[in-house]
């Protein structure tokens, strides 16, 4: 991949960002917002005139009120700092932010909260606790126009004006540079346990998982691992988890061999699932498929008929991580996924492959046109680039 040749800008404030944008405006060049750089490979090849806007100096927790369940911080704050501060008060980011540094070959890069928000990928608890988008309460930003603006607030229940926070999540810094944000936080469960089941193939395993998810036992995460085992996670107060664990074990006894793991062992398993550790140490192309859970096993089976692949199913089957040998048959993958009503991200690929394929899921014509108009509203001159998208203004 062609690297950004010019030295990155490292603003220390919103004023600095504003100045950088005005300079870019004058020079007719553009900026690329970067947090820790974990997902840099997904942003595509940078134009020669593009400079990185490195937010690592805009960092730190500004206001944490555990009893209000709200955390305000600056965008460049490293995720591990956030998690340490929350753990001290027995709380967490419930959307379970993943760390893809190893998966994306960015070892050593430190995921920042801004990067988590910008890319919008949630971890395994998304199944029960909501997506990244569901936890951003408000923010301050500098738009591609160079205007400082804010939206949302620091409270959970807020319908005052349009919910611009939703647009920031997953926009990859292509609309505005978020400098400060407020996140909803939740109590960390006191105890966790995971029931592991060995049974048949993925379609059988996922059917079992769906039965568990249809029960009132409050399953918090559910995955079918690359080795075929299903994992069903329960969290909460110990007395409650133990009782639910008994019931889940009972539900699966007749389906295959079952066992339960608890606390640290369970947490470690889910960290690996969330971060897709199983595909981290090889060089295969990795797709991230979002599907209606009932279709997941069928879609994977159809793809597997034409191309060797291994799948890890999370979110009860609704999220599929697919590792493929050799070339990435994008037409096949995206075709099957879209027939089933889903979409596919190209998460990891050699530079040559990435140059040929869209990283972000392609959108239909109407949504593309609307997205372009949204982009123009924030960044009419495309000073912030297209990120992984292909609907930017100047393309």
């Amino acid at each position: 991949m062609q690297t950004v040749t010019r030295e990155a800008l490292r603003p220390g404030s919103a004023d600095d960002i504003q100045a950088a944008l005005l300079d870019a405006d004058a020079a007719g060049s553009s900026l690329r917002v970067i947090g820790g750089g974990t997902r840099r490979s997904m942003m595509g090849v940078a134009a020669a005139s593009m400079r990185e806007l490195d937010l690592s100096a805009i960092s730190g927790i500004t206001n944490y009120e555990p009893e209000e369940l709200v955390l305000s911080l600056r965008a460049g704050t490293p995720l591990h700092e956030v998690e340490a501060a929350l753990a001290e008060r027995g709380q967490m980011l419930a959307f379970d932010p993943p760390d893809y540094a190893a998966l994306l070959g960015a070892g050593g890069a430190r995921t920042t909260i801004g990067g988590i928000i910008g890319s919008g990928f949630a971890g395994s608890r998304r199944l029960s606790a909501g997506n990244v988008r569901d936890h951003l309460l408000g923010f301050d930003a500098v738009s591609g126009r160079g205007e400082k603006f804010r939206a949302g607030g620091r409270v959970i229940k807020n319908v005052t004006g349009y919910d611009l926070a939703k647009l920031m999540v997953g926009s990859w810094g292509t609309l505005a540079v978020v400098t400060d944000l407020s996140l909803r936080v939740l109590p960390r469960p006191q105890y966790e346990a995971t029931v592991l089941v060995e049974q048949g193939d993925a379609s059988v395993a996922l059917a079992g998982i769906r039965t568990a998810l249809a029960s009132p036992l409050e399953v918090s995460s559910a995955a079918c691992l690359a080795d075929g085992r299903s994992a069903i996670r329960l969290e909460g107060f110990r007395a409650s988890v133990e009782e639910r664990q008994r019931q889940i074990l009972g539900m699966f006894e007749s389906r295959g061999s079952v066992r339960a793991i608890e606390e640290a062992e369970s947490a470690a398993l889910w960290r690996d699932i969330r971060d897709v550790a199983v595909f981290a140490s090889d060089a295969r192309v990795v797709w991230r498929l979002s599907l209606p859970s009932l279709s997941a096993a069928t879609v994977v089976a159809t793809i597997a008929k034409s191309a060797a692949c291994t799948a890890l199913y999370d979110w009860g089957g609704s999220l599929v991580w697919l590792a493929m040998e050799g070339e990435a048959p994008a037409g096949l993958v995206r075709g099957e996924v879209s027939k089933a009503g889903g979409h596919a991200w190209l998460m990891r690929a050699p530079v040559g492959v990435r140059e040929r394929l869209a990283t972000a899921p392609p959108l239909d014509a109407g949504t593309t046109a609307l997205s372009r108009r949204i982009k123009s509203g924030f960044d009419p001159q495309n000073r912030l680039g297209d990120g992984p998208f292909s609907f930017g203004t100047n393309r």
Partner: protein
Amino acid sequence: MSLRMPAPDPAVLSARAEVIKGLRRILENDGVIGDDESLIAYESDGLTAYRQLPLAVALPRTTQQVAQILRFCRERGVKVVARGAGTSLSGGALPLADGVILGLSRFNRVLDIDLENRVVVAQPGVTNLGITEAVKKHGFYYAPDPSSQIACSIGGNVAENSGGVHCLKYGLTTNNVLGVELVTMDGEILRLGGKTLDAPGYDLLGIINGSEGMLGVITEVTVRILPRPQHARAALLGFPSVEAAGQCVADIIGGGIVPAGMEMMDRLATLAAEEFLHVGYPLDVEAVLIVEADGIDAECDHVLALVNDIATKNGAVFSRLSNSEDERLRFWAGRKSAFPAVGRLSPDYYCMDGTIPRGRLAHVLQRMNEMSERYGLRVANVFHAGDGNLHPLILYNANEPGQLERAEAFGAEILRLCVEVGGVLTGEHGVGVEKRDLMPEMFSEIDLAQQMRVKCAFDPEGLLNPGKVFPQLHRCAELGRVHVHAGRVAHPELPRF
């Protein structure tokens, strides 16, 4: 009424007969209302202080008809106001004299009950409760439960991002909607999201939720359904002071508990509810708290025991844990009828809807009491304590000259106070026309311009529900100039790298 709405377009007013004829052609003479007598049914929504007869009402049955109506109206420069069940408390569906009401009442079918994927696809006119009714026998329900859930429509819920008493644990509408079909003002049909747990591209679905019918007309909604909890138990607690009740709420949350519901009532609201229904609320306390846990028995019992301990430590003088479903429902009955109960104390009341950081509750109530004396109007408070959403009910008598104006001024001052302490103007009722002119309390001109540019991306001519949310109408072309002015002139002194 002192509210200023966009000036009606005389050309549209004089072309009324032609517009009605055009609508009749599209709907094949079925579902167009054009006579003033029948239009009265549509002259206001749940915010009845404001009334306006629309130009006409169109009641389509299909997405194609919606697209045709919008295209027809756009070609003629006719404004359109979409309407679900008309229960908005902020005037979101208030008609315009030169605008067509697009009623979605005939979009009343549940299209797909997909238990395997745990979603329901419904037309926008289906009621909120209708979705739960459709999946009840399979052990599922739809979680967001605004108090008007018997009547309010799911399409309206999306437009307003409606809440309910279980938001803290289960989220608002926006957190439970996975997809919509939407028709834009130029008649284009878009599908955003679907049966997946995230959607590609910019989160357009996220911006639709809570956009108050200004970006497009929703013709289909896909929602997530949840297995119904096995049990629910509630604690009814009484405190000698609002401070003690507030501290109890903070300690429950600080103690790692996320209750299914947590509601507070002040003395006046409690008295009114008890007098109305005799449910057994303590009358010698300053604040009543209802805390609900749901899940398996072990979960409910454990959580309620913790809550009871925390309440005792915070000086609760009254504590009762529900021992039957009957008793639990009785605890809630008083809270759920708090509005009509307060309504018995006074000929009229004005319901407010601000959100505050929970920790500022005692301060806010204290300041509100001072205002109450100054305005000479009583105020009762019900509070979604779990999420900080406060509903002050201002008691007044519309027949006494000046009281409505005083109540409105009192209400505006309360909302300013909410913003002052770090909260927001509206938690779940929406801005609509009601809080429109207060928006500058929370947002600068640039903040509002950025929101309006999103509106322009969907509806460049500003024909869909104009006059709501934004205090000033700007033409989309004018918004560009805010930038040049603010960006270049305001910071000439900026240092460069």
